[in-house]
């Protein structure tokens, strides 16, 4: 059976090489049959990799410990869903998983466009198969998941060795979210390959028009959504499992997933500059290129051990391969850009500092600054060793100092940017759009200050959040009012109609609102509290409004782990409100101990209790309690962001096509954005393409 898996992988590599070579030959000779066969080979890769994945999964589910990967990452007592997740818990499996998700993207990119863009697709196919060749090479020759455990007998002949029990899945990964977090994050990482391929293809083939930028944008949104979900699930996992009371520690692996997210966010904004005004073409192409390179860099950081991390579960000396691949990508991008730089000439220039254009420029500047700071801080140990000989790392203070002001400035732009007119905004327009939201924002800031809210950044964040939320609401309200008056419907129906008519714009507003909710949640961390101490049975500890009483300590044993558990009763205002059971588990297969955090989560605050261990001096259990305000807002905001992005990807509902009297439609504006929000420049582009 293992032969079957290895063989499928090898065939996948052959198919990818064929797709690459035949694709180039097809571009040169312009023979349609060759181009078609290259495309079919590209799609076949997906089927072959799927077979390899299915084989490995079969071994995991059937506890076949003759396979090294299964023996190292699974054990018999593991529940089936964690055996499923064991597939991507190690180096070889996670690389295979990467290849698999990429091949699914490639399949759909090739399949959905098989009858479209005949000038562009061959280049796309070649680029995609180039990336696949790299990963399949790793899968086949560097980190094969189908390595058989062998043992030499007395005569020195190797025999297959089958060990009785595997060493188990890393207990940190035995958490429900770990079954969905890696597929989400990897779908983000791999997904950015598709926009990269389209951008490079458009540049190489000098594809006329702006069509490719629409396609690239659409695919970027898909990958961006997965990346957002993946990052937030990762943060939630760190919060719920690692037990240090936080969700983000500026760990290299966390940073690695944030980097392409930042550049992709920048691209999703600056792409509008190209669509509406024909500006920033070089910038956009490079944003797409850099996003992809950061994905490869992130994949490398996660598994090379170049920088140490609490999230890295698969490490080896594989880094060199990635460095080489990055160098090749950079060289190809530079060459493609240099050769075709005249193709990217800008059509327009900046007219005024107070304009939509300039808000996008600042947005991009500041996002890139954040990306650069995070990258620099992450790789600082590497750079400092190169340049000064001593390895120096920087911690959270560095990242927070730079990124908190950036985040606040971004919130500000989120409120201001969408309401500024293209080219130039009049003072009158500014006043009309911003006077009320700004006044209410400042007023709420003053109110909060009076109520003892003194943290500077948190105060600014509050003012800006109120301001931005109000500008977003007023946008919906003004648009909906026009429709409601005309269609004689209530304001909520009208708001829905408005959103469906211009999903991209109003979906975007919802994404912005979700981000505000996330930032408010992050702001809550300015008010975190924690208490740690030894506690006997009957002891009480007080944190914020809560009192925690230890009722009992007990133990539990099952096939997978032994647990020590505390039973704690939580009182508020003298009344018992809930029971919490923080736990420590020692896993039998790996002999690793993990804390299971007890969290009581409410919209206002999380009570987060950790059984931190036994004090070595007194042999008494130590309990660490945290009070983290507003954490729930982060996860909730994430849901809003994802829903908003999904909405923005829907095609616009055309005015009046659905069952409605024709007469009523005549008065309707051709461009809904222009009519309902007079202060804002006309939005002429509609996302009616579908690729």
């Amino acid at each position, binding site marked *: 059976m293992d032969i079957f898996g290895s063989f499928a992988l090898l065939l996948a590599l052959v198919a990818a090489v064929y797709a690459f070579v035949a694709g180039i030959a097809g571009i040169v000779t312009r023979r349609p049959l060759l181009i078609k066969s290259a495309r079919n080979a590209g799609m076949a890769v997906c089927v072959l990799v799927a077979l390899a994945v299915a084989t490995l999964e079969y071994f995991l589910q059937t506890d076949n410990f003759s396979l090294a990967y299964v023996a190292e990452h699974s054990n018999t007592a593991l529940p089936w869903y964690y055996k499923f997740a064991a597939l991507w818990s190690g180096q070889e499996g996670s690389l295979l998983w990467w290849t698999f998700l990429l091949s699914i993207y490639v399949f759909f990119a090739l399949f959905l466009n098989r009858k479209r863009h005949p000038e562009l697709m061959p280049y796309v196919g070649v680029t995609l198969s180039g990336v696949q060749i790299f990963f399949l090479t790793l899968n086949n020759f560097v980190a094969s998941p189908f390595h058989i455990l062998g043992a030499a007998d007395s005569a020195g002949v190797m025999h297959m060795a089958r060990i009785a029990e595997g060493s188990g899945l890393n207990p940190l990964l035995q958490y429900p979210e770990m079954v969905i977090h890696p597929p989400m994050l990897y779908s983000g990482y791999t997904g950015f390959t598709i926009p990269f391929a389209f951008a490079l293809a458009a540049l190489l083939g000098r594809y006329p028009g702006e069509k490719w930028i629409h396609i690239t944008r659409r695919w970027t949104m898909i990958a961006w959504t997965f990346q957002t979900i993946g990052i937030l699930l990762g943060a939630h996992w760190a919060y719920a499992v690692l037990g240090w009371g936080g969700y983000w520690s500026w760990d290299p692996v966390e940073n690695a997933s944030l980097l392409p997210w930042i550049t992709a966010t920048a691209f999703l904004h600056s792409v509008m500059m190209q669509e509406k005004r024909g500006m920033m073409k070089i910038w956009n192409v490079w944003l797409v290129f850099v996003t992809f390179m950061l994905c490869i860099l992130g994949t490398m950081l996660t598994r090379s051990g170049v920088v140490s991390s609490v999230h890295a579960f698969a490490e080896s000396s594989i880094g060199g391969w990635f460095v080489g691949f990055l160098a090749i990508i950079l060289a190809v991008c530079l060459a493609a850009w240099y050769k075709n730089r005249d193709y990217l000439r800008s059509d327009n*220039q*900046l007219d005024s500092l107070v304009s939509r254009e300039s808000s996008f420029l600042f947005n991009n500047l500041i996002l890139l600054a954040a990306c650069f700071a995070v990258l620099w801080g992450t790789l600082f*140990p590497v750079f400092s060793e190169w340049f000064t000989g001593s390895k120096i790392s920087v911690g959270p203070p*560095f990242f927070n100092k730079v990124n908190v002001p950036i985040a606040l400035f971004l919130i500000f732009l989120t409120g201001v940017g969408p309401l500024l007119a293209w080219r130039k905004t009049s003072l009158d327009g500014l006043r009309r759009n911003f006077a009320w939201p700004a006044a209410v924002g400042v007023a709420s800031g003053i109110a909060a200050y009076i109520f003892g809210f003194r943290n500077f950044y948190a105060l600014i964040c509050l003012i800006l959040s109120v301001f931005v939320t109000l500008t977003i609401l007023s946008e919906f309200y003004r648009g909906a009012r026009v429709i409601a008056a005309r269609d004689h419907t209530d304001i909520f129906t009208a708001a829905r109609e408005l959103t469906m008519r211009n999903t991209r714009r109003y979906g975007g507003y919802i994404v912005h609102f979700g981000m505000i909710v996330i930032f408010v949640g992050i702001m809550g961390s300015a008010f975190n509290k924690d208490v740690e101490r030894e506690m006997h049975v009957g002891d009480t500890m007080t944190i914020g409004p809560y009192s925690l009483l230890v009722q009992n300590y007990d133990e539990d044993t099952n096939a997978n782990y032994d647990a020590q558990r505390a039973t704690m009763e939580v009182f508020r205002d003298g009344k018992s409100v809930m029971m919490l059971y923080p736990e420590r588990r020692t896993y039998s297969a790996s002999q690793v101990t993990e804390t299971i955090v007890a969290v009581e989560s409410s919209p206002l605050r999380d009570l987060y209790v950790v059984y931190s*261990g036994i004090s070595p001096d007194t042999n008494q259990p130590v309990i660490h309690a945290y009070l983290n305000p507003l954490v729930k807002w982060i996860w909730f905001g994430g849901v809003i962001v994802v829903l908003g992005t999904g909405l923005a990807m829907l095609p616009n509902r055309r005015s009046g096509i659905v069952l409605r009297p024709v007469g009523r439609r005549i008065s309707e504006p051709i461009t809904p954005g222009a009519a309902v929000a007079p202060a804002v420049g006309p939005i002429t582009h509609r996302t009616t393409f579908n690729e």
Partner: protein
Amino acid sequence: MKARQKFIVGSFVIIATLIILAYVGYTQSKTYYHTISEVSSMHGSILQQRMRVSGNVKDGSIQHVDGQIQFVLEEEGKTMPVVYTGTDPLPDTFKDGAQALVEGHLASNGHFQAEQIQAKCASKYQATPPGVTPSQAPSQTMANPASAPSGS
């Protein structure tokens, strides 16, 4: 071109502010990685540095003295006495022979004052490829909540 110039000036101000903030953050949080042999030959102002040192916990060296934990870290024949001054309970993986990464600074008596300790069972240490010494691969997957950085 007035708008363009304004934009360039604005960008310059923003970038300059961020660089200053980055520098302040850097001086507050920079931590050096050193090997035990480097630490033993140190003198002068660099002794004040915040640093991370890795090595193995010497067999039988863990002692509880006056409510504090003391032990000896060894690597390639060099040793360094360590006093744990942190408040978190030590990870369960911290025992004789374990691979440990300590973070803190050197005291004037030559003891290393560790504020954080990460540890990993020696037997589970398979991830490092052969030939890589612990100092080159400081904290491979030392997943342990007590020592994860705090503050977000």
